[in-house]
C-alpha cells in the first residue's frame, strides 16, 4: 500500500468495515442492513440487564431463558436471505 492510499476515503472505509462489524457500504442490501440492525439490537438487549428483565416479565420467562433466546435469534434475525438477483 502506498502512503497516499492510507488517506484515501475508500481504504479508510475498508479499514472500518473490517474492524467494525456492521459498517455499511454503497452496495448494502436492505436485507443485510436489517440483519445488522437486528443483531445490534439483540446484543444491546443482552448487554442491558434491566432490558432483559423487562422482556422476561412481558413473556413470563426467566432472564436466563430470554438471554438464550436472543442469542439464538442472532443466527437468522430476519429469516432467510432473499435470492440473489445476479444468480
Amino acid at each position, binding site marked *: 500500500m502506498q502512503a497516499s492510499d492510507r488517506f484515501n476515503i475508500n481504504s479508510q472505509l475498508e479499514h472500518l468495515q473490517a474492524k467494525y462489524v456492521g459498517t455499511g457500504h454503497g452496495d448494502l442490501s436492505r436485507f443485510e442492513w436489517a440483519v445488522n440492525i437486528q443483531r445490534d439490537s439483540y446484543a444491546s438487549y443482552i448487554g442491558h440487564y*434491566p432490558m432483559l428483565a423487562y422482556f422476561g416479565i412481558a413473556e413470563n420467562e426467566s432472564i436466563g431463558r430470554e438471554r438464550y433466546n436472543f442469542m439464538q435469534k442472532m443466527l437468522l434475525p430476519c429469516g432467510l436471505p432473499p435470492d440473489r438477483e445476479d444468480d
Partner: protein
Amino acid sequence: MYLYSLTLQQATGIICAINGNFSGGKTQEIAVARGKILDLLRPDENGKIQTIHSVEVFGAIRSLAQFRLTGAQKDYIVVGSDSGRIVILEYNKEKNVFDKVHQETFGKSGCRRIVPGQYLAVDPKGRAVMVGACEKQKLVYVLNRDTAARLTISSPLEAHKSHTICYSVCGVDCGFDNPLFAAIELDYSEADQDPTGQAASEAQKHLTFYELDLGLNHVSRKWSEPVDNGANMLVTVPGGADGPSGVLVCAENFVIYKNQGHPDVRAVIPRRADLPAERGVLVVSAAMHKQKTMFFFLIQTEYGDVFKVTLDHDGDNVSELKIKYFDTIPVAASICVLKLGFLFAASEFGNHGLYQFQAIGEEPDVESSSSSLMETEEGFQPVFFQPRRLKNLVRIDQVESLMPLMDMKILNLFEEETPQIFSLCGRGPRSSLRILRPGLAVSEMADSALPGQPSAVWTVKKNVSDEFDAYIVVSFTNATLVLSIGETVEEVNDSGFLGTTPSLAVSLIGDDSLMQVHPNGIRHIREDGRINEWRTPGKRSIVKVGYNRLQVVIALSGGELIYFEADMSGQLMEVEKHEMSGDVACLDIAPVPEGRQRSRFLAVGSYDNTVRILSLDPDDCLQILSVQSVSSAPESLLFLEVQASIGGDDGADHPANLFLNSGLQNGVLFRTVVDMVTGQLSDSRSRFLGLKPPKLFSISVRGRSAMLCLSSRPWLGYIHQGHFLLTPLSYQTLEFAAPFSSDQCAEGVVSVAGDALRIFMIDRLGETFNETVVPLRYTPRKFVIHPKRKLLVIIESDQGAFTAEEREAARKECFAAGGVGENGNGGADQMENGADDKDKEDPLSDEQYGYPKAESEKWVSCIRVLDPKSAKTTCLLELQDNEAAYSVCTVNFHDKEYGTLLAVGTVKGMQFWPKKNLVAGFIHIYRFVEDGKSLELLHKTQVEGVPLALCQFQGRLLAGIGPILRLYDLGKKRLLRKCENKLFPNTIISIQTYRDRIYVGDIQESFHYCKYRRDENQLYIFADDCVPRWLTASHHVDFDTMAGADKFGNVYFVRLPQDVSEEIEEDPTGGKIKWEQGKLNGAPNKVDEIVQFHVGDVVTCLQKASMIPGGSESIMYGTVMGGIGALHAFTSRDDVDFFSHLEMHMRQEHPPLCGRDHMAYRSAYFPVKDVIDGDLCEQFPTLPMDMQRKIADELDRTPAEILKKLEDARNKII
C-alpha cells in the same frame, strides 16, 4: 428548569454475584453487581447478610469474575462493563473502598455487539483473563506480578473470529500448563448467504479451546469440536491434581462433559413431570464447589430446580456423569457456594436468599446418569421428577429486593406524618404489594406495661468494664422503679436507689459507683453499698442535670449551676458554682475524651432562645466560651462526635467533628459544629423533625456513638459508610429512651411511651425505606386507588400459567399419585415417599417452586380489591378463558347513576410470538358494592384491539385501543362510542387529562397533546414530539409539561412552548385549522425537550410527590431493578451554579470506578440536559481530604459547607 437527581433506594436486583476472599484472611465475601452498583456483602456470624461496601460506578456492569495470583491470600475482581475497558479492582479493607488496580481500554464504550465486556473468564490459576463480546472479539490479558509483588497486566492478545456468535466462555483448569479458555461459538457466515435455508439448518455450535502460549505470548485456537446445538453455558471442571480437567457444557435438556481427546459424556437433566412437552430445560446458573478430596457442581434450571452434578473419574478419564435432584429455590441470576457451608442465591426477581447446607445430596434421590442414558427414536429418554420440600438447604436469611418494581403510587393513605409508597413488586407467585415508609425498620423485643405513666428511663452498668447493663431505672412522677437485667427483667429493691422520689438522672460515676439525681439532691451509691447524699441548699430543687462518667452539672431552680467532678477515689466533689441570668432549659456535657480527665465543654440552653457553651477547665471554670441564638427555646441538648469518613477507625485524615445538637421547642433539630479548642460554634444546619420538641439521647450503633431524637416520631442520627445520616425510625412516638445492652441484645434501646416499657433493636442500617409486604397471586401490572374509600384495586396477570382451580386440581392429582410411586426411575424414591408422608401433606408453596408452566397461549389474571390498612383482600375476581387485564381506571360517568365505577381493559388470547395476535379485547365496567369492598360486573364491551390505557375525561371514558383514541359513554348494555381519532402512530399506552387537554403516550413515539372539542365532537392532536421515544412511564407535570421515561433507561420532560400554548388556548378553533395542515406527517406543533437524563435502568413508573411534610414536590421514579429515585427542581440559580460546578469537579477529580465516563454515561442515548447528578455529588465525602479541600477552594467554600449543601439537598427530598 434544573433538576437534582438523587437515588433514594439503590437498585435491589442483582445481575451477577461472585464469591471470594476479597478482603484477605479467612472471611468469604460476595461481590454483587446491581446494574450500576457494585456491592460487597458478607454473611456475619449470625448468618445475616451485611453490606460492607457499596459504590455506584456510573456504568452498566455486565459481568464479574474473581481471580487469585498463585500463592496470594486475596482475590481480585475483574469487571466487564459497558466502558470498553477492563478494570481490575482490589478491596481495600483498611479504607473500605475498592481500589482500581488496572484499567485498560480496548474498545468503544457502550453495550455493543463486538465490544468485549459481556463475558469474562479467568484462568483457574490466575494467570490470564479473557474478556469476550457477543460476537467476534475476544481479548486475553496476561496477569503477572512484578518484583514488588504488584499485579501487572499485559497488552491484549486477540482471539477474534469474525462472523461468530459467542454464547459462553470459561477458563479450563489444566494445572500449570499453558492457560486454556473454552468458548461456545456459532458461525453464521454461511447462513447469511444461503437463501435456501440449508446452511442455517446445518449451522452447528462448536466448543473451541483457545490456548494462551505464555512462551510465545500468543493466543491460538487449539481445538474445536461440534457440540449440542442447545449449548448455552460452560462450567470449569477442576483439573491438575484435583480432577479430570475439561468443561461441562450445559445445553437445553443436557449436561455434557467434554475435553480434548475425550469422548463426550452426556446425561439428561431431569424434567418436572408437569412440564409441557415442547418446553426444554435450560440451565441458567451454576456453581462449582471444590474441597480437598471431592468436587461437585450445582446447576439451576430456569424453573428453579437445583441439581447436583458429579463426575466419576479415574485420573483424566471420566466414566460417568450424574445429575441428581438437589432442591428447588427461586430462579437465581447467580448462585455462590461459600466455604462456610452457605449458598447465596441472587434471585432474578424477588428477595435474594442465603441458605445453609444441611446435607450435600448424598441421600438417594431422582438421578439421571450418563450410563443409563437411553436413546430412542424420538431422542433421548427423559427422566422425570417431582419437586419436593427443601431437604439439603435451609434458608437462614433473605435480602429484600423490590425487583421488578411494576407500579408505584405515593400517597398518605394511613394519615401518617409522611406519605407511604405503595409499590407493586415481583413476578408470578412471588409478587407482592410492598408498602414502603421512609425510615429504618425496628424489631421490638419486649413490650411490657408499667404501673402508671413513666416519665423517664435509664440503663446503668455496675462497672465501667462490664459488657452489659445491670439495671433499668424507670422514673414516675413520684417514684422510681429499679429493674435488674438478667435472664429476665424483674424489680429489685436492694440496688440502693431511692424509690420514693422521681429521678432526674441515673448514671455510672467513676469506675464503679452509681449516681441518682432527684429533685432534692444527688445520691451517690458506692460499690460497697455506702451511700453519700448531697442535698440542695434551702428549698431549691434541681431542675436539670448534665453528666458524663466523671462530671456532673446540676441546674437549680432560679438558674444556679453547680459543677461536680469525680476525683481519683471516685468521690463526687463540688468544684464551682455559677449563676445564670434565668432558668436553665437544658444541659449537656460532652463525653470524656479518651485518655482525658474531663470534658471541656458544657452546653446550657436557656429560655431566652440561646445556647451557651461553658468551659469546664479548672482555669476558666464555668466561663462562657460562646453563645448561639436559636429560633425557639431549646428543649434538649446533646454533644455528638461525628467522624464522617469511610477510612479506617484511626480517622487520621478525617478528624472527627464535635457537633452540638439542640432539639428546639418548635420541633427543629439544630446541629452546630463546636471548635474542639476554642468552643466557638460555627456551621449550623437545621432540620424539622416533627411536631414535638425533639429529645436527644446518646446511644451506640455498631460500636459508634449515635443520636436518638424523639419528636412526634423517633429519628436516628448515625454514621453509615462515611455519611452522617438522620433517618426516621418506623416506630411509634416515644417519650424517653436509653441505650440497652444485654446478652440477648447487644445494641438495643429501651424506651417509655404511655404506660409501656419497650425494648427494641434497629435492623438493617443504611436503608432508606422499610417495607410491609402483602403477597399477591400473579404478576401485578397496575393499580388504582378508590378515591373515597382508600382501597387499592390491583390487576394481575401472567402468561403461560394455570388458573388457581387448575393448579389445585393438578396438585391433588399429584398428591394422590404420590402414594403409588410417582415415577419409575428409582426404587429409592418410593421409599422416600413412604417415609416422608408428612411432607407430602404440606402443600408445596408456589413462592418457592414457581407456578407450573402452561402453554404460552394460556393466560391467567385477576382483579383484586385490597384494603391497605388491614392488608386484606376484600374481593378477588379471577378472569376466565385466557383473558388478561392490562389497564385499569376509576371513572365517574356524568349521569352519576352508579357513582364511581371501575373500568378494566382486558385481552383474550394474547399472543406475542411469532406474531402479535389476539382473539378479542374487552373493556369491563364494574360497580363497587359493599362500601367499595367488592365488585360487580355491569357489562363488558368488546373492542378490536388491546385496551392498554383508560382514563376518565369529562364524565366519560377515554380508551386507547391500539392506535385508536376513543371516547366512550356509559350505556345500559355496553359502552357507547362517542368520538374517536385513529391517527396515532403505534399503540397508545398512557392517557392523562387536564382540563380539556388530553396527553396521550404512544408506545414508540412519545407524547401527543390532544384536545377535545365538545361542540364539534372531535378529538384532534395539536402537538407531538419529534423524538421517537419508547415510552414505559409517563406523568403529567403541568398544563404544558409531561414527564416520560423510555425503555432504554432515560427520563425526560417535554414542554409545549409558551407562545404555542397561549395561541392554542386563545384560538377559537383551538388550533384546529393549523392541525388540518399538519407538518411532516405529524402534528403542526412540536414540544420541546427541556430535561433529559439517563438513569441506566428501565423506569416503570413516575409520580410527582413530596416525601416530607410541607416540602416541595419532586418527581419520583421506580425501576425494573427495584430502585427508587427522585428528581427535584432547584429553586435558586445559586444552587444550580454551585451543584453544576461541584458535579464538574467531581467528574474530573473522581472518575467512575469502572472506567465509564460519567458525562457519557448520563448521555448514553441523548445528551443530558439540565439535570445534576446528585449521586455523583454525594460521593464527595469519600474523596481524600486534600482533594476535598482542593475542590472546595475552587468553589470558594470549605469542605464542611459542601457537605452541608449536600445534606440540605437530600433533606429537601427525603
